């Protein structure tokens, strides 16, 4: 699939997720943004960007949450709510699955490291820190479970 016109429209869906990752992004809504049928959207998106749309959304939410943990004093519950999670439990679990650390640990580590990031445009900083979510969250969870079981 290398039709640039289609890719450009899929990019629009990705941009919309980036702009409002705290919102709900059902396939129907994303497909509309891209002017693609619902049946083809998820597959087309994954082919274009190497990751299914739902997982892309998760990486962006984790990325935003990480930035808020690092840059603000907001309570973790508030950060979970602001970045699109319905419950603190789901947020904490997904956050650990993706980053390997708890939100509280990430906050403490980020503060310990004295960052000098003000000179780099913040958008680029956040992209550089994007969670590298190459395996499905559920898969990570299974692996962690089997590791625990095996040990």
């Amino acid at each position, binding site marked *: 699939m*290398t039709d*640039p*016109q289609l*890719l*450009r429209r*899929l*990019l*629009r869906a*990705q*941009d919309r997720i*980036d*702009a409002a990752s705290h919102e709900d992004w059902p396939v129907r809504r994303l497909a509309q943004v891209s002017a693609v049928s619902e049946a083809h959207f998820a597959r087309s998106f994954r082919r*274009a*960007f190497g990751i299914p749309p739902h997982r892309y959304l998760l990486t962006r939410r984790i990325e935003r949450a990480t930035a808020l943990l690092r840059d603000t004093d907001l309570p973790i519950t508030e950060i979970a709510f602001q970045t699109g999670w319905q419950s603190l439990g789901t947020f904490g679990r997904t956050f650990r699955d993706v980053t390997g650390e708890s939100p509280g640990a990430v906050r403490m580590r980020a503060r310990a490291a004295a960052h000098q*990031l*003000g000179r780099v*445009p*913040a*958008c*680029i900083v956040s992209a550089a820190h994007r969670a590298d979510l190459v395996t499905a969250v559920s898969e990570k969870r299974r692996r962690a479970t089997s590791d625990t079981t095996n040990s």
Partner: protein
Amino acid sequence: MSQGVGVVGLYVRDQDEALAFYVGKLGFRVHTDVRNGDHRWLTVQHPEQPSFQLGLFTPGPPVLDAATAQALRAMVAKGAMPPLVLDVDDCRGTYERLRAIGVEFTQEPTDRYGNVDAGFRDPSGNGWKMIQAQKRSH
């Protein structure tokens, strides 16, 4: 200044469309627009930056083979090209003005570290950050 970077090029999917965008909407000026067969050397300039030209080029022959050109067109359309930054004095004002004439913004003006930045794309998919730098006190 006689030494320094003179031209940096972007790949665009259509040069007429890119010209309408960069000149008609962003307010750049045409510096050079020369055709040689199928090849068109097109550069534009920011009105306040006469020593720098932004090239608007289409990937294709005679410089590139068809498969390479196709891959590059896909990369541009996926937003995979490097970030671009436009410095402005008034990010919010420029955002309102450009949005009103149909520029596709990907991010509303946001305060960060004392700067204000917004994001937009050109029709091809090239991503720009528009940054209003913090005013330095002397």
